[in-house]
């Protein structure tokens, strides 16, 4: 049976190629959607993890790092740094703003205000903020608003200067921009925003560096005991909480989209198997006349379908990776990791199952086939 399938595939190479492209494309769509979903979660996961902290201090009750309004008393830094085992506590403040450049669309941006730690992880162009009013923006903002190093970045009439461009600094469809504490205070005063705020939201989180040899759990417990208004987390825990929040937000939508991707793949496989069966009705007639059972013929169809899936999968991965690279290049706000081993394995197994189901779709055509067809012209 395998030999027959191989011959059929080799006999019409163009058709085999087109079939592989069709199945590969359908699989590429699934991989892309899976990659898009994974990317959303990876972005959320990385925000807390890449801040370079051993422990993260939040306002009591705040369990997320991304998109949370955490407000710590300013004295917290001093309190935390006085605890045995703490090397340094870096303040960081997260502040949502809306960026509106004339002639372009509005975008929400998270200002990440930092002092001695927790700033941009990589700078792909320019440099970190070193002068007053310097700002480091994510690549997605640079692409969307045609911004380069040295360009102005105006928010609420306050002019920042783009000193550097970072990458992979976004989450929840929102890009990050990094500024210094001095500039944040100037921004509040210069743009007249300060008038209605009784307490400046100066401190959202503390990124704690633990002294070498100190036990992190002991230090965390000591911080919680000393600062009643705060909770202490390992970055991994906050990162996990952010991902869980992302799953609550995007899970249902992405589930439906990925489901639609699988339906497309199933229909494509079914369509191909229909075409294959109808093209070979006479052959099947001969085989039935020779005593092949319906079961055996369907088994052949299943094997052929599985072979096609196996042949198409690498092409699907390649197409998905190319599309992902294109998306990340043109819209760097998104991360689309399609080459995640778990996702690839899951998609491959699901595709094989689809192959089996798809092969059964033209079952009726084979079952109803009269062996006498072979004697007709």
């Amino acid at each position, binding site marked *: 049976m395998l030999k027959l399938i191989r011959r059929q595939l080799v006999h019409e190479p163009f*058709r085999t190629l*087109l079939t592989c492209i*069709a199945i590969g*494309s359908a699989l590429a*769509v699934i991989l*892309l959607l899976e990659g*898009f979903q994974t990317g959303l979660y990876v972005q959320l996961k990385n925000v807390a993890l890449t801040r370079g902290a051993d422990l993260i201090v939040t*306002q*009591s*009750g*705040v*369990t*997320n790092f991304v*998109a*949370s*309004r955490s*407000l710590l008393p300013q004295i917290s830094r001093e309190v935390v740094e006085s605890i045995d085992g703490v090397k340094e506590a870096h303040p960081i403040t997260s*502040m*949502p703003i*809306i960026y509106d450049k004339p002639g372009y*669309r*509005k*975008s*929400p941006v998270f200002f990440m205000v930092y002092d001695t730690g927790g700033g941009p992880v990589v700078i792909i162009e320019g440099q970190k903020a070193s002068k007053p009013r310097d700002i480091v923006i994510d690549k997605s903002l640079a692409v969307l608003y045609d911004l380069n190093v040295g360009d102005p970045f105006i928010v*609420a009439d306050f002019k920042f200067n783009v000193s550097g461009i970072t990458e992979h600094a976004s989450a929840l*469809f*929102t890009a990050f921009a990094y500024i210094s504490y001095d500039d944040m205070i100037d921004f509040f005063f210069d*743009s*007249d*925003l300060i008038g*209605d*705020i*009784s*307490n400046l939201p100066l401190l959202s989180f503390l990124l704690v560096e633990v002294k070498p040899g100190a036990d992190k759990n002991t230090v965390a417990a000591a911080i919680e005991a000393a600062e009643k208004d705060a*909770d202490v987390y390992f970055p991994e825990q906050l990162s996990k909480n952010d991902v*869980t*929040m992302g799953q*609550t*937000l995007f*899970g249902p*939508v992405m589930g*439906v*989209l990925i489901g*639609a*991707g699988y*339906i*497309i793949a199933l*229909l*494509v496989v*079914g*369509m*191909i198997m229909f*075409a294959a069966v*109808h*093209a070979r009705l006479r052959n099947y007639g001969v085989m039935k006349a020779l005593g092949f059972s319906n079961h055996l013929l369907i088994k052949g169809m299943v094997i052929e379908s599985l072979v096609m899936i196996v042949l198409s999968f690498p092409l699907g991965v390649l197409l998905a990776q190319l*599309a992902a690279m294109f998306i990340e290049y*043109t*819209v760097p*706000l*998104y991360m689309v990791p399609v080459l995640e081993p778990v996702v690839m394995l899951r998609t491959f197994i699901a595709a094989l199952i689809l192959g089996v189901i798809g092969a059964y779709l033209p079952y009726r055509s084979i079952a109803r086939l009269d062996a006498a067809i072979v004697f007709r012209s």
Partner: protein
Amino acid sequence: MIYWSIKTLFSEPMRLMVSALAVAVSFILVIFFSAVFEGESDQIVAYLKKMDTDIWVMQKGVSNMHMASSMLWDWKADKIEKLPEVKEVSAILFLNGPIKIGGKDWFAYIIGLSPKYQRGGPWDMFKGKAIPGPGEAVIPEVINRLTGVTIGDEIIMLDRPLKVVGLTRGTFSMASSVVFVSHEDLGDLVEAPDQYSYIMVNAKPGVSTQSLIKNIKNEVDKVNVLSNEDFIKSDWTLAVQMGAEILRMMTTIGTLLATLIVAFTAYSLIARKKQELAVAKALGFSNGSIYLAALCQSVVITGLGLLLSLLLSYTVIIWLPLVIPQLNLTVRLHHFIPLAIIALPVAVVASLIAANTVARVDPMTVFKG
């Protein structure tokens, strides 16, 4: 040839159906994405729409509620209330952030209601009390359905436990479920006990909105004042544009996939009918008429796919939120316009691929076995 082409296509209705369905689902992938973004965007402005006010007053430099933060001293509401053109004023404290309900973090619009201004409260109650007092909260009934948290249960806003006293309708959204709490609780947690975020102003009959906006800007420092329409438009546009790029990508991907499916169907049909086509060529039919036949098949498959996608969108997609209540989907006819425009080139490209095979058919094939 056109008759032959249609007859061939409809001779295998099951196969035609599967092909058209595959095209339809490719299109639906695009429509679903649009429906999600528009549905969410509609829901993001649901609160603003339901408040039905004339004017919104907010912190200077702010022109949105979605993903924004605004703070105003409470005396500004009093000052606006005293303006002669003002009929009524209401104010809310607002926080856009996660709130823990049933062990999960839900991204929410947390609205702090003061006893003085209760107009900013729920507009459609499912059950219970509408206006929460200190230590109380009113949550969307969809969250109640999803988590089982109901009246009398506890939710956590930051570290503060609040007792659920009411369930509301029309307030759920993935990114902006509306949760009502007391101004006292929210003000305490965000350290803004004497502030509001947004002030709603209604003008007296006969007073023009624009003149009142101008007057408020003159009388009250450091505020931004927007008409209801402008504020809603600003938020809706911000929300819907957040998905603009990914929508364009999905449209491209969905269209490419649809092209490939149509091309494959047309190609495999024509490839199987090589002998008949050879007869046609031997009888003197030109390549042009055969190209037309291929085009005709592609147009039929694409058209059927488009029709099916329209049908499925207005049945399955509309019905989906009943099964998955987290989804807010809005299907509008304008979603189909780009697809309808794209459908014709899809059919042409697909038929060109298929027709390329036909053009190479040798009329001598008719004499082969």
